[in-house]
């Protein structure tokens, strides 16, 4: 069990986190015809927007209530109303996801009350558009929390009980899954003849679709009608511990049983996932999926040579960190440094590392330097640390802005893990250093070992 420690620094250096409203907006981007709306000053939106664009290389519909000096002092309800009406009129969205920011939360207003009265007063004008509110101050949480809150809010405001649909299942993917991962989940469900409602579904909206006409909203994702229907599903599968809450909400409201998969990066959990789909659909596991499983075991056999004894430093949000720690440890590597964004997640206890630091990329770099490290695993901002440590850098999570196509990288299920094994092994093979007489000289080696006292042999 990992020991969880908080970084004691006053100044966060090279932050690992992205903000909570960004996480909520990210989830709303997975709903068809939606526009996320930041209730805050313009900058809150534009920084998030730029980061999204850098990661996805897509147009991102993201709007702002553009709080100014006067509204900051007198109250933002008018700005919220105006923004909603303008958005409705100009973009005809099916859903507006209102994400609060630190500015308005610090000011402290009754957003829910304001929004209820706006909806009441403007019922006719706003007909056909759902408005969902999430409270996501920047000063708390990170992407995971924002994402969970947005999905929970969607469930609370839209999902209703109804007649059971035997082949319909809800899939609640966590924020750490890529577009390709979501597609893979859909295809896998389809292979069993199941009809999945994926909430949210970024695979439709952030997968680089080129639409026939200009759309000011998201042009894919989970349709609002489908979200309403989620209460009629036979089962809910949540992927990532942070999706437990929305799954629970669906169960409470509509009596849909659920199961949480804390990761789909290990052979055993993937087996459980596939077996669950088989049981839900009353169908045998299709041949192509059984083949994929074979391919993964072979990849594990071929790949484990490269992982054995390697030290890995991971900086990621809790669920991604946990999944990756299981992935690396399962192949014989050691997670020598683990840094995450938030202490709230129960999954942190299960991270396969001696300790987990809630901190920043400076902490990651320091711990990697102290404990030894053969690979830095974090988002693109970790590139400076990797460079200084002189080791390769596997880019995971959000944002990845200095590599294109990262949304199409599969990281879960048999084929995703298979590919990930190869990617990591190839990073190491590419960075292989030729031996030199100096590096192997036993006498020089001893004098080096004396100077940096490291325990040997390494225990697993």
């Amino acid at each position, binding site marked *: 069990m990992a020991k969880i420690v908080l970084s004691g620094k006053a100044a966060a250096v090279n932050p690992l986190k992205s903000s909570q409203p960004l996480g909520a907006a990210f989830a709303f981007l997975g709903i068809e015809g939606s526009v996320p709306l930041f209730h805050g000053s313009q900058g809150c939106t534009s920084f998030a927007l730029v980061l999204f664009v850098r990661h996805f290389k897509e147009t991102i519909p993201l709007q702002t209530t553009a709080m100014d000096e006067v509204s900051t002092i007198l109250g933002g309800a008018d700005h919220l109303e105006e923004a909603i009406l303008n958005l409705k009129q100009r973009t005809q969205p099916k859903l507006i996801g209102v994400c609060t920011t630190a500015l308005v939360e610090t000011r402290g207003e009754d957003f829910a009350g304001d929004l209820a009265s706006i909806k009441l007063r403007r019922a006719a004008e706003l007909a056909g558009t759902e408005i969902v509110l999430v409270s996501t101050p920047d000063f708390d949480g990170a992407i995971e929390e924002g994402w969970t809150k947005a999905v929970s809010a969607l469930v609370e405001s839209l999902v209703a009980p109804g007649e059971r649909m*035997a082949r319909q299942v809800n899939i609640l993917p966590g924020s750490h899954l890529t577009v390709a991962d979501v597609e893979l989940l859909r295809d896998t469900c389809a292979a069993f003849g199941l009809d999945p409602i994926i909430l949210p579904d970024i695979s439709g909206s952030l997968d680089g679709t080129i639409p026939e006409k200009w759309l000011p909203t998201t042009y894919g994702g989970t349709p609002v009608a489908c979200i309403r229907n989620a209460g009629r599903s036979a089962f809910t599968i949540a992927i990532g511990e942070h999706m437990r809450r929305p799954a629970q909400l669906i169960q409470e409201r509509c009596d849909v049983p659920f199961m949480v998969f804390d990761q789909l990066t290990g052979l*055993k959990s993937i087996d459980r996932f596939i*077996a669950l789909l088989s049981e839900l659909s009353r169908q*045998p596991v299709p041949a192509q999926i059984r083949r994929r499983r074979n391919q993964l075991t072979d990849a594990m056999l071929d790949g484990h040579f490269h992982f054995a004894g390697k030290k890995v430093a991971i900086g990621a949000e809790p669920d991604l960190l946990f999944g990756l720690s299981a992935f690396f440890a399962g192949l014989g590597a050691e997670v020598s440094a683990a840094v995450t964004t938030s202490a709230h997640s129960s999954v942190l206890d299960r991270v396969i590392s001696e300790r987990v630091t809630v901190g920043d990329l400076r902490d990651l770099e320091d711990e990697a330097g102290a404990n030894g490290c053969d690979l830095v695993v974090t988002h693109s901002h970790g590139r400076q640390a990797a460079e200084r440590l002189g080791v390769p850098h596997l880019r995971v999570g959000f944002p990845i802005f200095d590599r294109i196509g990262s949304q199409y990288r599969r990281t879960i299920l048999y084929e995703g893990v298979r590919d990930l094994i190869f990617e990591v092994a190839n990073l190491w093979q590419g960075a292989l250093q030729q*031996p030199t007489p100096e590096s192997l*000289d*036993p006498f020089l*080696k001893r004098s080096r070992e004396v100077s940096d006292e490291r325990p040997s042999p390494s225990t697993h």
Partner: protein
Amino acid sequence: MLKDKIAHVFEEPACDKNQAKGEKERKKGCSKPLTPGAAAGGCAFDGAKIALQPITDVAHLIHAPLACEGNSWDNRGAASSGPDLWRTSFTTDLSELDIVMGRGEKKLLKAIREIAERYAPPAIFVYSTCVTALIGDDIEAVCRHAAETLGLPVVPVNAPGFVGSKNLGNKLAGEALIDHVIGTREPEDAGPTDINVLGEFNLSGEFWMVKPLFERLGIRIRASVPGDARYADVAAAHTARVNMMVCSTALINLARKMDERWGIPFFEGSFYGISDTSEALRQTARLLVERGAPGDLVTRCEALISDEERRAWAALAPYRERLAGKRVLLNTGGVKSWSVVSALMEVGMEIVGTSIKKSTDEDKERIRELMKDDPHMFESMAPRDLYRMLADGEADIMLSGGRTQFIALKAKTPWLDINQERHHPYAGYDGMVELVRQIDRAISNPVWATVREPAPWDAAGYCVGPAFQQAITPNHDMEPDVSFVAHTRRKFAAMGADDMGEC
């Protein structure tokens, strides 16, 4: 003539295998007739190239159609501390027209000239191959002519593939060195403690783990043949006082002839294993003193040995607990088997079998002494038997070369590469500790338990066991799809797991 050369090589008096034979048998030579359709291993050209190519500053030119070099270049893990010309691949890449029109020799001469001009190597080695030998290209004449006109050593290596095995090729490479290279340069700094190490390939740079041990004793490695060697050092190798022969069967003719021609005594030793490394240092010191080196070398050597052995055993101690009782299957040829056996047994591992395919009688005797149990030695094992043995869990790890790697992996058994493609250096005291560390790593990798776990469904994809009965609330709306199940059951009726080609 090549024929005479081969007969001559076969009559190796220093080879104990050869000496054990009768007169008639000896005449037949030692190449076992290969079994078409059931042969494995490389040809004589392969052997010759392996034995010479790690000489790092030489341009190695293969006179052949593409396959001989094109399919085999840059495939070995020898390391160089300087030039990397040896890793640049040169071949005459003969075309059909070249062969039909007899333009091979001309093309070869031109190729030699091009290489000399562009790369200016200290020497060029020219290898003959099956096709060029068959069409009668006289590489010796071409090399002589090229050497005269270019003013640089151009060495013919006459070992076409069809003449025999890889091992024969090793020996023919030794002949090329003795005929054309060694003794062609007189160094100014020859000293009383110079030695050569023959048959050391410096795989993964492992000789660099041993060289400092010699240097600490004031012993200079004049030439390590071929690993990380320079042409000039090999050319001056005759001035060394002692030869250590590492890979016993590869260059034995070279060692014996150097003894005959220049009076350089040789001994056979190994850097694999703690006691073997000590023995190699001890023998070197003893022979050097016999040849006039200062007598205190022996006492200094003993001091170094006791210090290094103490360190190595201390470093191995923590592994004893982790590895005691673990069963090793050694599937490798030659000298490696007995020298590693003793060290593995020292950390408490059990040797469940060792291959003696390339071992000499002496090797076998040593293994017998160590293991006190004959049945554990096998000549060679069919892949099927090897697979069965590993799949049945009769060994915890197999140490072998890359060729049998996948037998172990498909049997989901830990495997460690101890041949030429490996990435870890295992020579000397530190190397033995490294080997044990790698064995520990391989065995303790959690991947084995994971991949051995069967899928929770049968060969036809039907889930076995009540995996989720509790998790899923009974779903009364959906009846089991009887027709579907019946259909698939029919489809797969009477099929076994093997028919499915799965799992």
